[in-house]
């Protein structure tokens, strides 16, 4: 059986996509696979969300797209990060860290602690 899956919190899909695309031009299927693998299959990206998100980011100018051949010789649409996307990635990563830290701090409070 597969590992237990976690739904992506709202708004984090864009961050993950930008992060993966920052490593080099990549097509949609590879992005989905990469997220799944790196998260040890804990995060499953639905195609129904992935592709609209890719098109939205492309339309916003955070990603640029190009049709290229894959190593298997088929044509695929490769996405890469633009300068604007890099800035967005930086902002969103910082935001995420701040959020995670804050949430972590709150969760560290044990039940008896007074605030």
């Amino acid at each position, binding site marked *: 059986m597969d590992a237990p899956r976690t739904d992506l919190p709202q708004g984090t899909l864009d961050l993950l996509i930008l992060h993966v695309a920052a490593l080099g031009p990549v097509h949609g299927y590879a992005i989905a696979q990469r997220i799944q693998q790196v998260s040890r299959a804990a995060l499953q990206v639905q195609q129904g969300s992935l592709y609209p998100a890719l*098109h939205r980011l492309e*339309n916003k100018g955070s990603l640029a797209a190009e049709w290229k051949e894959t190593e298997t010789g088929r044509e695929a649409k490769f996405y890469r990060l633009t300068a604007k996307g890099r800035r967005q990635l930086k902002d969103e990563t910082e935001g995420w860290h701040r959020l995670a830290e804050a949430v972590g701090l709150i969760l560290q409070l044990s039940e008896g602690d007074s605030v």
Partner: protein
Amino acid sequence: MNWWQRLWRKREQERRLEQELCFHFESQIADNIRAGMSEDEARRRARLEFGALESVKEDCREARGTVWLDSTWQDLRFSLRTLRKTPAFTLAAVFTLALGIGANTAIFNVTNAILLRSLPVPDPQQIVSLKVEPAQPDGAGNTGDSETSFSELVFERLRTRHDAFSAVIAHVPLGFNKISVRHGEVPEEVSGEMTSGNLFSGLGVRMACGRPFTLEDEYNHAAVTVLSYAYLERSFAGNCPGALGQTLHIKGFPFTIVGVAARGFFGLVGSTDLWIPLQRRPEFNAWGSSNDSYYADVNWWCLPLMARLAPGISAERAVVMVTPAFQRAAYEPLGGKPHPDEKPRTLALVPMRGIPGGQGQAKILTVLMAMVGLILVIACGNIAMLLVARNTARQREFSIRLAIGGSRFRLFRQLLTDSLLITGAGAALGWLLSLVAKRALVAWAGIDFDVTPDATVLLFTIGIAILAGVVFGLAPLIAAVRVPIGLALKSSAANLSQSRGRLRAGRFIVALQVSMCLMLVAASGLLVGTLRNLEHINLGFRTSGLVVFGINPQLVAHSNAEASVFYQALLDKLRALPGVESVTLMGNRIGSGWSNNTTAIVDGKNAVASGPNASTGMRWNDVGPDFFTTLGVPILRGRDLNGRDSDAAPKVAIVNETFAKRFLAGRDPLGHSVSFNPAKPYTIVGVVANNKYTGVREHDTPMAYFPYTQTDASGVKHIEMRVAGDPVRVLPVVRKTVAGFSPDMALLQPMTQQAQFDETISDERLVARLSICFGALAVLLVATGLYGTLAYNVSRRTSEIGVRMALGARRFDVLWMILREGLLVCLIGIAVGLPLTLLSSGLLESLLFGLAPRDPFTTSLAIVGVILVSAAAGLVPASRAASVQPTVALREE
């Protein structure tokens, strides 16, 4: 990429999207196989994981941001395609809407021209007309336009106030009616105004060619004239430079044409043919009057004034600034200050809107606007029902679209596009119809001012089209979008509950339409009844065989005595013409609305009226010999006026029955005297039966008639001729006779006496005709709506009817069943409409004549009419229901 590039490359994009998703899908299958699945299993898992391909695609398109454009285009094309597939529906909807919008636009266009439009000049909001409130100072002479006329002195003082006004413009008609002008052989009638030199520069009116006249022309009283473009087209074949320099004989005096005003400028008083600078000659007095010139008589208030406010000065501010100067100028000729018990007169500045005197038509226009408004609502009801029917027929399509992943919002938008297309086409066609209707209106109403629709009218049309679109478009849309997805899978029988709701809504709409239709038909009945009453009224004389025209003697006679001689000679010549039975003349043309009014002086003292609330006023007219014989008015006592009642003869007068009853009750009127001036009594020598003077609607008033030779012979008189046969056929020979006196002498407004009286009820005739049209339109729309509802009901119940008949129902029962339904709806409509009708008919009161706004006969007639129409509309579907063959009907299901 631009949005249009994206739109253009749509096909390419779609291919790429498909390819991208396919690549993902196939990569997944490959990976699944690599993980050890069979090919079928791999494909199944991939598909499960992927979800609905089309919905992913749709989300991607949406994410691209231009989807609204793509899909609007798609919606538009799809709507066009589906509308084309149902041409009957489309035509019915578009045409119904076009009728509603066209009628509204046409009436609004006229309303706009009469009440709302500003002058076609730059910064029209600065243009104001001047009013004196409440009227001219006591003791000042006036023209009857007591609120809007000023003395020459006031004009001269105000025009120097450049702190308040950038221009003050005086403009006054050259005659009460049209004047005679000649630039070839035959004189013609035109409407002319005499204005200050800043008319064109002050307003900012451009010239089509030539130059405007100027202040210098005014100071020199130059004999120059500027024509309107409409007059140029009418009389100079539109040859703009060609008309310049030509000589125009205005009232017999030569004027040089120096310019033609730009097309679209029709003057300040509706429609003016030509303008000349202010003149000093007595022949060119204000309104063509024979009084002293307005230059000589500083106390005669005869000049209408208008002004352009100085930049940054409001009307209120300007009034405050110039009031002291105005009051000084107003009272200077009257001893410097107002009469002790007179409130000093004040000035008011009113924005120039519509045509002068247009406010008098406001009532009629309101009624007409209300009528066409109702028609539009009725039309919208029909279109709403058509749309609901169409959407019901398409429910299966809708539910399939929803089932395969189409969004309800998208469906809503698709239907909205349908409505918008219909609205757009309806509005465009309505606009065209209104242009046709405009022509008809101009002809029917004798409109002599510009009614070319302007931007306001266009905005109005677009506005009501949008409103209509919302009214008829939205409700059915919401209903349609509530379609359950499962419907696609169900059989047709499951539709029943849905369509019952729609049927109820349909009946509700039809009942409302019937109620509005009743209001319209009742109003139309009242207005037609009014016209009939007016047309059948007894004028007090025989109009058949009478022809009338005006003559201005100023061309040949310059004094009272000369004019008497001229008219005597003219009457003698005319009497000698073949076919002429008798000829007379009058100062005020009967039936033209003009009258002389004064306090009656009987036997040298102010008259004492017998009877409660009777006024001591009388009307009078100056008339020629054989006046009553020519008209055919019965002479009750004494004699008619004759040729011996000359200036030198004893002063005589004739009074009417009402005069005798009110002022000389119980006495023999003959031998008493009547006058409008105590120093100048006229002995009463005859009493005549009452007859109409100003118009058809006039009530009986005390009347005195004086020989024109003994009052003032010098002004324009109207010649009345009784001839055998068609009276108009005598005019050419009359024209020749008149030209014998002077080539510049035109027959002013020649027409039959009947036509002259008909003119006094032309508004009523127009309103009656229009209301018949509107009533008929409403009846037609309601009948169609009712027919549609019942026909739909019959088709829905075919099998039920079949069962009923198979079980023994007679054809008549079935017929009655359907007919009853229609009549029930109609009766509900009448129940709602009757109180509304009774409430709203009060609005008509001032337009009616000889019947009350709640005239029971007319109201009952309207009710019966509406019921008959409903029955007729119901009969077709009812008889179709009655002819159902049970076997066929049952097999159908």
